[in-house]
């Protein structure tokens, strides 16, 4: 039986069906980075604004190296090849001229990126000229066509893996907008034709080709000369492409290191709206806390992975046992036993449907009605035609009437009442910010809500409330310290980024520990602006009174009763403690003859914890004396 009865009683967190932790990539990506290595790539870009004048080659290498560092964390199952063309040396399976596939030990040409690949590639510029060399590959008079060769090599490499599961891409870095410009007549036409045909073939095989144009020494990269045809751009897209190409490079370099998840639905839900109306929804996990990767235990001597083995023992007899066949639960001072069969029998009934119970105004959804990250639902007509139409109609009504739906979500292990909040689509220039659909918010039950504020209820008197003046002062602060463009996920998790950075440094053998920036620190400069400081000072005086700091200092000085008492105990302890020769007592093993009270004199006098049994106290004293 493939059923695990523990399932039923486990926390939701480790439920294998659990929607929150199904983050496995179902598809992966294969990328070939094709880098032009012609001598032209090594001329510094003499851009007026850019004084640093890096060579385009350096820009490309840097960009790929950063992209790899990101990729190895975000989606380490992706496969990459780095391939130069217009090189002196050649290295490729087809033995074609002018194409050099860069690789390191223990790695196939198209394989997952490794720490070694990243490390060696990052320093490739030092050895490039001597080992690989740069050379124009397309020269008039010769039939050689290095661009054609490079595409061919890339295409051959990308043949690996099925078309269905793998997203295949060629990223082409070059600053030559007219590779066949130097050739004249029929030969030129012929070469252009065959090269474009080669690209088309690749695209027909499901390989997409992307171009990352690099700066040219003197003029703009003119995409319409040749590459528009190669990558299959329509006229209208041309201007758009130029605008976005620069961003793309920047994006690749600056990408945030985070694990990427392919879009996949968590499950299909049947949503019963009323008797006779059930529609189909798909749920998606748009927000889930990202954790540092899984820990693998290693043998610190060999650095080889360890395998864990569980052994069960009877707590009463110590006998080794097989996986016990029964479970029990104490109830009314007895153990009630269950067999696995009985548990699976109990489990056999469950429905996974979402049932609408009604609607409420949004104001009924309080800020404390939350337990877990929300789940996004989107309609589907895949199996029930008409679902989307009903969903859109309800969605619009809910938005317009400012209401949310209350529904019962009956997952087998965790039936819950949920709120469905309609979210309208929000788009910005960079694309979709909020997708249209509904967010399912898991509501707490009364058992889940606590009332800590009632613990400190004032008994005799009414509690003070702010006066209008105080509120006004607070409003000034609110206006001053305003995060205008706050967006919810603008901060990277500093702990996670540090984790990744440390991992990278250790894997690549970098000496320096990178100092990851903590974006979450408050803007101290901003807070020190006089306007804000004054507003805060006004508020402080309004609620705390004129002499708050002074009063605080005084009350700190005039230590509270409790601490005075503590001080008194410590003083007597020091005094009493001096009456004993502790070293001698310890040496003769006489400590155990003292009473606990006496032992505590020593501990209090030396500021040690006084909790625990007598043995614990003695051992603590001995440790402190260094014996």
């Amino acid at each position: 039986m493939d059923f695990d009865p523990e399932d039923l009683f486990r926390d939701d967190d480790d439920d294998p069906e659990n929607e929150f932790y199904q983050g496995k990539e179902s598809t992966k990506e294969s990328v070939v980075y094709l880098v032009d290595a012609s001598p032209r790539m090594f001329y510094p870009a003499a851009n007026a604004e850019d004084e640093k004048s890096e060579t385009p080659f350096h820009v490309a290498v840097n960009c790929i190296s950063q992209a790899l560092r990101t990729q190895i964390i975000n989606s380490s199952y992706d496969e990459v090849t780095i391939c130069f063309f217009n090189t002196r040396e050649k290295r490729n399976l087809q033995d074609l001229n002018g194409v050099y596939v860069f690789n390191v030990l223990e790695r196939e040409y198209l394989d997952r990126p490794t720490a070694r690949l990243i490390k060696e590639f990052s320093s490739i510029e030092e050895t490039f000229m001597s080992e690989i060399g740069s050379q124009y590959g397309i020269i008039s008079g010769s039939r050689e066509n290095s661009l054609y060769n490079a595409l061919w090599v890339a295409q051959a490499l990308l043949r690996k893996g099925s078309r269905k599961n793998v997203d295949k891409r060629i990223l082409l870095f070059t600053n030559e907008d007219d590779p066949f410009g130097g050739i004249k007549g029929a030969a030129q036409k012929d070469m252009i034709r065959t090269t474009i045909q080669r690209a088309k073939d690749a695209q027909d095989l499901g390989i997409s080709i992307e171009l990352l144009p690099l700066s040219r020494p003197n003029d703009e990269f003119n995409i319409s000369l040749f590459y528009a045809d190669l990558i299959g751009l329509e006229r209208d897209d041309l201007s758009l492409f130029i605008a976005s190409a620069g961003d793309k490079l920047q994006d690749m370099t600056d990408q945030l290191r985070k694990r990427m998840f392919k879009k996949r639905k968590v499950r299909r839900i049947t949503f019963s709206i009323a008797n006779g109306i059930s529609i189909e929804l798909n749920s998606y996990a748009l927000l889930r806390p990202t954790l540092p990767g899984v820990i693998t235990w290693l043998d610190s001597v060999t650095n080889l992975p360890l395998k864990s083995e569980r052994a069960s023992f009877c707590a009463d007899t110590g006998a080794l046992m097989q996986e016990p066949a029964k479970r029990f639960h104490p109830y009314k001072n007895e153990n009630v036993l269950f067999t696995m069969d009985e548990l699976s029998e109990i489990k056999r009934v469950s429905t996974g449907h979402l049932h609408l119970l009604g609607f409420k105004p949004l104001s009924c959804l309080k800020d404390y009605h939350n337990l877990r990250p929300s789940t996004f639902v989107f309609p589907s007509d895949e199996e029930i035609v008409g679902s989307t139409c009903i969903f859109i109609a309800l969605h619009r009504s809910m938005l317009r009437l400012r209401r949310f739906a209350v529904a019962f979500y009956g997952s087998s292990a965790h039936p819950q009442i949920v709120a469905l909040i309609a979210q309208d689509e929000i788009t910005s220039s960079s694309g979709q910010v909020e997708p249209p659909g509904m967010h399912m918010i898991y509501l707490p039950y009364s058992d889940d809500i606590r009332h800590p504020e009632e613990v400190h209820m004032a008994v005799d008197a009414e509690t003070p409330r702010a006066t209008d003046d105080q509120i006004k002062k607070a409003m000034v602060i609110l206006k001053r310290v305003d995060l205008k463009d706050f967006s919810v996920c603008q901060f990277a998790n500093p702990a996670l980024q540090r984790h990744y950075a440390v991992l990278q440094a250790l894997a690549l053998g970098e000496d320096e520990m990178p100092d990851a920036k903590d974006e979450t620190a408050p803007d101290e400069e901003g807070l020190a602006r006089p306007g804000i400081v004054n507003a805060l000072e006004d508020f402080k005086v309004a609620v705390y009174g004129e002499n708050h700091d002074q009063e605080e200092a005084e009350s700190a000085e005039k230590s509270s009763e409790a601490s005075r008492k503590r001080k008194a105990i410590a003083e007597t302890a020091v005094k009493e403690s001096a009456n004993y020769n502790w070293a001698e007592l310890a040496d003769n093993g006489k400590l155990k003859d003292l009473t606990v009270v006496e032992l505590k004199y020593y501990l209090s006098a030396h500021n040690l914890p006084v909790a625990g049994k007598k043995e614990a106290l003695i051992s603590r004293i001995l440790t402190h004396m260094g014996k």
Partner: protein
Amino acid sequence: MARNKVYLDFQISFFFPFKGSNQRCHLSCLKFGNRSIFSREALVLLLDVGPSMHNLLPEIEKVCSMLVQKKLIYNKSDEVGIVLFGSEDTDNALTKEVGGYEHVVVLRHIKVIDGDMVDALQKLPRGTACGDFLDAIVVGMDMLIKKFGPTNKGKQRLCLITNAQYPTKEPFEGTKEDQIDTISAQMKTHGMRLDCIIVRGKLTGAANKKIMDENDLLLNRFSKKTISKSVYVESPTSLYGALRTRNISPVTIFRGDLELSPSMKIKVWVYKKTSEEKFPTLKRYSDKAPSNDRFATHEVKVDIEYKSLENPNKVVPPEQRIKGYRYGPQVVPISSAEWEAVKFKPEKSVKLLGFTDASNVMRHYYMKDVNVFIPEPGNAKAILAVSSLVRAMKEMNKVAILRCVWRQGQGSVVIGVLTPNISSLDNIPDSFYFNVLPFAEDVREFQFPSFNNFPPSWQPNEQQQEAADNFVRMLDLAPSGKEEALQPDFTPNPVLEVILGLQFFYHLLCLFGMVSFMMSFCIQRFYHFLELKSKQPDADVPPLDRTLKRVAEPDPELLSQNQSVIANFRNKFELKENPKKKKSSRLLWREKRSASDEGEKDAEDVPDVQSVKLIGNSSKMKVEEIGDLNPVQDFEAMMARRDSSEWVSKAIRNMKVLISDLLDSSCEGNHYDKAMECLVALRRGCILEQEPKEFNQFMQELSKKCKEKNLKRFWELLISKHVTLISKEEAIDSDVADNEAKRFLVKTELTSE
């Protein structure tokens, strides 16, 4: 009959020579007492069993017995006493000692809970007198004082359940208010808490508004001098939520400064506001201990050993293990010491990043359970500072963004949003709610198509939109002037409340026509089974109760009120199964089919349709043979059985035999129609299950049979209904082309002539 004032004074002086209470002592006891792990609560239930309560007593019995049952599992050493008032008899210590206090019965003295108490609570006697709740409170308080004296402060609770419809007696001297002040001062001295649950559902005719108002005032007066809370409930469901069945002592997760800036700080305490109640875990059972060992724990210990892959016999000691993290295909080892040296180590602090418009933080970004920030208790400055910020934020519709490190040494920071909470009670300070927000890494940017880009057939038209508007407006759970239904604060977790017979809880809900839940049947069943097994160890797993088979559905009353709106909504939209989708659609198809069947039925029996359907379905689920009474239903049920792949082929086989038999036994074609129905069902089933060959082969056999046995009329019937071979277009596995399938009938007919 007047309450014996003399007694009150006597008690006070007897137990408390220092009459004025020592407030500090009491408060400190609250603070520290609550943090104790071994907090054993002493609870006295004060239950009104007077005539006007009779209709409510069944639920009160259930709620209270559930309370004790839950304690049996979670707080085994808690103590409970039961006092009834409004009863016919009188039996309490005070009446013996000082007289008075009639119609108050101590059903159970305060003692550690046991199973008998559950039984006692399940059959409360019905009273005949008009109970005086003040008498009951004094009796309950007296029980607690006699039992605990000055000890156990802060862990004593009186819980009064009444409808407060009868007048209280006039005291000998002073006013009722004075008396309440005396009582509540007493309660405060002893660190008692009073919870009043006042049931105000549909009023019985005799209710006297004036008396009830006076009683409400009296009960509210308790909260002036002692820790007391009154909750008014309208529905039995809320009754379940209002009686807090499990007591958790709150523990702060942070005490310190909320830093607006380096110079402006507010002292706050942070608690959890919501936290998911977890389920009891089953333990693994060891049967190794000898059966006569009464002290055996029967527990199973689990040891985990780490062994190297190369040498499986060698156990690697814990100190030789090192953690490794994946970096691409490699695993990078990092020792704890190394990690400690480089890891992110923020300082303990709670700092303001800034304020922003509430609309910038959408509700669905809240990530976790919720915290509450309260100003440091007793610190008037902090209370004022929080109060002014809360009110300013509310006024300007702003929220605050914070960066929090709760503890020193915590390896991560939390970014969250602070939202204002204006206190509704005079004696509770204003506070903030705090919700954790996601980091950039936590967001998965999936793209979804815009609704506007969908084809027009997917867009609702004007009438449809109007029907939806009405539907959303009318199916209202929070109508003005009535109690909001399903308010989380009063909606108990059905699974946790299940502990014992949830059947009756469920039954109750149905009875009162309030809200029904779909509970996790298996868990419910588990607790039901637990109770059964504790009484009878060899009990079988109970069959699913019929009432439990009903799934969640909205309040039937709400549905019947809005019949026309729902019917209109249903009629405006069309839903049908996607014919292209086959294999995986079986279950949905079934659900859909019965759903559309329902659509045709009268709305009168709406609430019951679904349960009937479900029971019907599940009985079908167990079909093992195709009978000739309802062959089509049996066939479909069998095809839908998922417990073994055998069923599909068996169903097809059986159906074929049945059709043949029907044709063979047919006399002048009297079974043709039935055979036809079966054949159509078989065809549909074969398409759904992707078994076209089975069907096509059968059709070939059938055509032969028709020729041989002279079943020409049946064949004509087939032609008239266009029942032919399954073509490739209908099921990919078929090797019959579309036009071939069309020709099949004609061709066969011609040759048969």
